[in-house]
């Protein structure tokens, strides 16, 4: 073997920078100078832990690629050969002795030669070659494989160096990248230990000795919280998302993170977890704020809707038409009274009604355009509209106001139409009422004046009447007084003579004096009765109400008339009901009435009987005192006038009995004075019954 060939190989190998071409160069050299027939170069791949094919001669490339041997299989003859450092010869396996392993070289005998210097590059790779001489491998072959091994080792070393540099650089980039991410990022192993952390994570989870106590405690707490969260979300469960509350070590405030975790393989058969923490504290706050704003918006919207509903309600409750128009003059809203004037009624079309509506619309539009044309915010005009239904002219006062937004923009105009029909009618009515009122006032004034005059007149008349009445009473009193004085003389002297004070009288003289006496007495009775009537009529008859036992009163009356009864042949009977109540009345007046009635009965009954009967009248609740006789009776014609003054059925008869003709008149008046009455039942020639009815108590008592 020439040294030139070896030098050529060395030069060729040195010139080549890649492993495979170097291996090919070496194989070719061995083919030419070492007798190699077929060969396979395999190298150790530390990463996978396998011996894999690199290149071959006389071997298909598929065969090269397919060659792969697990280095962990330490009993494998090739693995043993790789670790031995010496070439190993494998004999032809033949038909009977098949080898336990296969190679791309087939069943032929081959040599397995470790690459490189056995003292230095142990386990670098193997050269499998056929065609070499049996016995020890030649020095040339060993030299070539050593050269190839040395070269490959050098290339790998350089490759490793380059890789490391690149890794360093890439690692630096990677850290720059993850540090550039403000969100904390962590890689933890299965036990939760932190393998990688960016600055964001370090800030939360690590603390140097220089940090203060509070910081360190916060960091410890954060670590605890973070580990706990990791353990509850094991790496095996796949990517997870959760929330984690940590503490800002520098400021001490709570920070809310959303933690995204994903399992990653950190080395063979071991998983770790990458966690990215996203600070959602502000996000949460923002979310809450958005929710709050949304809620407020909802409330405001509801309030606005309520306000709008209320506004609608108000608008609709106003009886005057109200219209809201946009700046272009289009009607945007109106209340029902306005609709009546400015919209076509639903239902059957009516040309006339629609014409009136259009007319109204034109009038209104003209009015509104004037408003927008002007500068003032308010506009007021009297318009003449037409009632679409009736066609009646409706005078209205239109008051319009612009609605101006905060920014001074005219957004709408509100117009109220005030119906003046009523106002005009009211004004007319008011005038009318006022005129009537004035007339009435005048009339009242006149009537008042007249009344005052009448009043004065009446007052004067009343005064005069009072005076006249007083004068009449006084006059009668005086007349009575003046009549009594001479009567006293007449009766006195008559009496003196009848008593014989002036000597004995002859019988005729005596008779005539008796006549004088009787007439004087009659005159006195008339005067007394007249005085009674006057007193009753002028209301000056005093009435004294007291409790009266009627049977006692009747006893007294009977005692008084006893002498009269004795002078007749009449049968006089008293009938007193046992249940006669006590009554309240004027005792003297009742006695006067009963005495009068009884006297009359005795006077006008020539023969027969006189009854006096006292009983309660169930019908009227009054007491009845009835005096019945079998006397001359009273003709029906006279029965009505019998109670009037100076009436007597038979004057001559009465006079004969010394009646004044005033007795019954007085009786009736007295009965009235006591709230009672006197009735008469009589038949001419058969007798009379006078009945006095008395209440148990006078009304005014």
């Amino acid at each position, binding site marked *: 073997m020439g040294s030139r060939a070896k030098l050529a190989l060395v030069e060729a190998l040195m010139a080549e920078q890649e492993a495979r071409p170097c291996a090919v160069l070496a194989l070719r050299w061995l083919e030419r100078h070492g007798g190699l027939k077929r060969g396979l170069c395999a190298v150790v791949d530390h990463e996978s832990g396998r011996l894999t094919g690199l290149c071959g001669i006389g071997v298909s490339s598929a065969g090269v690629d397919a060659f792969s041997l697990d280095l962990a299989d330490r009993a494998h003859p090739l693995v043993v050969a790789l670790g031995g450092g010496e070439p190993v010869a494998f004999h032809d396996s033949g038909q009977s002795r098949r080898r336990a392993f296969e190679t791309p070289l087939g069943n032929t005998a081959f040599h397995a030669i470790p690459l490189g210097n056995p003292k230095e590059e142990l386990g670098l790779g193997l050269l499998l070659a056929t065609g070499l001489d049996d016995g020890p491998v030649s020095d040339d072959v060993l030299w070539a494989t050593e050269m190839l091994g040395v070269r490959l080792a050098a290339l790998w070393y350089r490759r490793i160096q380059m890789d490391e540099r690149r890794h360093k650089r890439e690692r630096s980039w990677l850290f720059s990248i993850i540090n550039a991410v403000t969100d904390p990022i962590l890689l933890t192993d299965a036990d939760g230990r932190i393998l990688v952390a960016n600055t964001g994570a370090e800030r939360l989870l690590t603390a140097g000795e220089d940090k203060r106590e509070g910081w360190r405690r916060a960091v410890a707490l954060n670590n605890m919280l973070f580990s706990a969260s990791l353990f509850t979300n094991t790496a095996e469960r796949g990517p997870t998302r959760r929330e984690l509350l940590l503490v800002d070590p520098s400021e001490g405030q709570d920070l809310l993170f959303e933690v995204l975790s994903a399992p990653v393989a950190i080395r063979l058969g071991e998983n770790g977890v990458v966690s990215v923490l996203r600070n959602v504290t502000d996000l949460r706050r923002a979310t809450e704020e958005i929710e709050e704003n949304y809620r407020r918006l909802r409330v405001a919207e509801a309030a606005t809707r309520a306000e709008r509903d209320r506004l609608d309600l108000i608008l609709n409750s106003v009886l005057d038409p109200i219209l809201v128009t946009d700046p272009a003059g289009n009607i945007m809203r109106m209340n029902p009274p306005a609709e009546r004037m400015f919209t076509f009624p639903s239902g059957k079309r009516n040309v006339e009604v629609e014409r009136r509506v259009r007319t109204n619309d034109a009038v209104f539009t003209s009015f509104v355009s004037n408003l927008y044309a002007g500068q003032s915010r308010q506009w007021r005009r009297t318009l003449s509209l037409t009632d679409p239904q009736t066609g009646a002219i409706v005078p209205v006062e239109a008051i319009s106001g612009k609605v101006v937004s905060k920014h001074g923009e005219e957004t709408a105009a509100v117009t109220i139409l005030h119906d003046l029909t009523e106002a005009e009618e009211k004004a007319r009515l008011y005038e009318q009422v006022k005129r009537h009122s004035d007339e009435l006032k005048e009339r009242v004034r006149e009537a008042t004046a007249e009344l005052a005059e009448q009043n004065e007149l009446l007052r004067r008349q009343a005064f005069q009447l009072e005076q006249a009445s007083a004068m009449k009473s006084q006059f009668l*009193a005086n007349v*009575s*007084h*003046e009549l*009594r*004085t001479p*009567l*006293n*003389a*007449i*009766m*006195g*002297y008559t*009496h*003196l003579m009848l*008593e014989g*004070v002036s000597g004995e009288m002859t019988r005729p003289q005596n008779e005539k004096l008796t006549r004088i006496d009787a007439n*004087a007495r009659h005159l*006195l009775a008339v*005067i*007394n009765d007249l*005085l009674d009537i006057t*007193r009753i009529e002028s209301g000056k008859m*005093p009435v004294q109400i007291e409790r009266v036992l009627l049977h006692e009163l009747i006893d007294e009356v009977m005692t008084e008339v006893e002498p009269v009864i004795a002078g007749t042949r009449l049968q006089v009977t008293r009938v007193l009901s046992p249940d006669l109540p006590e009554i309240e009345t004027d005792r003297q007046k009742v006695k006067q009435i009963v005495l009068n009635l009884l006297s009359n009965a005795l006077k006008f009954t020539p023969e027969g009987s006189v009854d006096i009967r006292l009983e309660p009248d169930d019908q009227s609740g009054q007491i009845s005192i009835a005096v019945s006789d079998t006397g001359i009776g009273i003709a029906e014609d006279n029965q009505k006038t019998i109670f009037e003054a100076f009436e007597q059925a038979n004057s001559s008869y009465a006079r004969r009995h010394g009646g004044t003709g005033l007795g019954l008149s007085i009786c009736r008046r007295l009965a009235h004075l006591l709230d009672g009455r006197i009735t008469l039942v009589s038949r001419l020639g058969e007798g009379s019954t006078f009945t006095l009815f008395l209440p148990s108590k006078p009304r005014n008592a």
Partner: protein
Amino acid sequence: MTPVEESAPLVLVVDDVDHGREIFAEYLEYRGFRVATAADGLEALEKAFELRPDVILMDLSLPGIDGWEATRRLKLDERTRAIPIIALTAHALASAHDKAREVGCNAVVTKPCLPKDLELEVRRQLEARATEGSGAQP
């Protein structure tokens, strides 16, 4: 005319009307009373104080001092207070009678009055006074 006893009761008849005085005076004397008369109020007071009659018949309507006033004065005077006074009047109204009783009249008699009725009243007054104390009976 029956002679009048000195011890007989003295009746003072006061009336401004002559015949009024005459009728009652004559009848009372006829019935055995002593009688004095007066025609007006002043005279009545003088006679009453002077004679101290047992009974006074007092007409109410008198010129000058009327019967009511005269009665009031007599009833106020110690000397004449006890003398019964019978008012004699042609006034028939109750007011005149009430007024007479108010000023102190012991009884009121309305004219016309029969002399014998008057005598009964005089005797009634004398009896009433006798039961009260001293007094004479005709």
